[in-house]
């Protein structure tokens, strides 16, 4: 079987300009911050980013915005990265704001092959604009559509050489959802382990979902 371990440089070289990227993490905690730094080093541009937030200007994927590599962002929160708001107001970056729970379900729906989900969140607010509503037993729901992307960039605590992943505590967040919804999935991991060292019940992302593994350990 093909070895999934790949260099940071080679992994990011797979990503073309204009690609759509699901990026794990929450305020860059549990974010694939090595992969993000390498995106900047290689100067990838016109990216579409789907992520919980745009972090801070100096941390994790926040830097992608500051470096003006992002064309569009789909996210629940941009409040701690002034650059995102500034570029949005200037028309330099398109921002689609999505309630956080809806964002999680939309990415999950993309990953598990659902055509959409019905959520009560956002009904009657400006989030409803342009969306279909469905009424069920007198309650109105928004029809929210799945999100998929060309790549998912995730950050793991452990990876075995098949690509099974574990995440630690609140660093888990969006990572396992995104690992299902990327056409190509690249995982950076602190520890790379031999196959069989992660018990089956501890695996949070099964190996078959992961295409490439990058080590973040110092070499």
């Amino acid at each position, binding site marked *: 079987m093909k070895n999934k371990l790949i260099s940071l440089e080679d992994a990011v070289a797979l990503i073309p300009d204009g690609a759509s990227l699901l990026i794990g993490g*929450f*305020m*860059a*905690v*549990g974010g694939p911050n090595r992969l993000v730094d390498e995106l900047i080093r290689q100067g990838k541009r016109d990216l579409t980013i789907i992520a*919980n*937030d745009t972090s*801070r200007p100096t941390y994790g994927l926040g830097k992608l915005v500051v470096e003006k590599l992002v064309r569009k962002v789909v*996210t*629940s*929160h*941009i*409040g*701690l990265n002034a650059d995102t*708001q500034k570029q*949005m107001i200037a028309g330099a970056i398109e921002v689609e*704001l999505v*309630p*956080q*729970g*809806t*964002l*999680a*379900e939309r990415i*999950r729906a993309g990953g598990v092959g659902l055509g959409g989900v019905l*959520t*009560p*969140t*956002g*009904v*009657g*607010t*400006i*989030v409803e604009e342009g969306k279909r509503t469905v009424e069920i037993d007198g309650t109105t729901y928004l029809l929210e559509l799945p999100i998929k992307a060309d790549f998912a960039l995730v950050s793991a*605590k452990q990876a075995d050489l098949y690509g099974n992943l574990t995440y*630690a*505590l*609140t*660093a*888990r*967040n*969006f*990572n*396992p*959802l995104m690992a299902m919804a990327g056409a190509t999935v690249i995982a950076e991991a602190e520890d790379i382990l031999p196959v069989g060292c992660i018990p089956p019940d501890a695996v*949070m992302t099964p190996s078959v979902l992961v295409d490439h593994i990058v080590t973040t350990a110092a070499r």
Partner: protein
Amino acid sequence: MDEKTLIARRVALELMDGDLVNLGIGLPTLVARYVPAGRHVFFQSENGIVGMSGPITGAENHDLTDAGGSPISALPGAASFDSALSFGLIRGGHLDVTVLGGLQVDRAGRLANWMVPGKMVPGMGGAMDLVTGARRVIVAMQHSAKGEPKIVEHCALPLTSVRRVDLVVTDLAVIEPTDAGLVLKETAPGVTVEQVLANTGCELIIAPDLRSMPIEG
């Protein structure tokens, strides 16, 4: 006692033993300090944990943070999970109480707290799910801002949800939205009904059992 402490202490009285509670950033975070003795409350952080507590100095870790990215700790019996389960707890009716800050609350008890068009567009984060899904929504906020009432006839700001919140706790009063309108249930220590009314932008119904907040200085 400053105003924020007063609000946090009053809100904390609403938390019951065994409750699952999510506190918004800012003022609501203070509530955790004042949970009445003998009540065990499970605090959720929506980035993926139930059973969070304040950080252990010197033992902070980058894998264990709150929704703002600040270090926390996990109490015995804590559980961690992904964002879909975290919001499953919220949207699915498993969250007993959420405490959130507010920009405006209208006479129907609807909250606006996530954007000021043209000025501040941080995004809604988890607020819309929290207000829509929590069993009880408590708004914790200053009664007025720069002299302008925050409790108003109609919200000028975009709503967070059309769902009526359950309680509004301010530095002046405790107000309960009902079918009939906003009911003034309690006044802050030393605050008169007239002061509350003068700082409120819409009609309030005075509760027959109106009382002073059960908070001792």
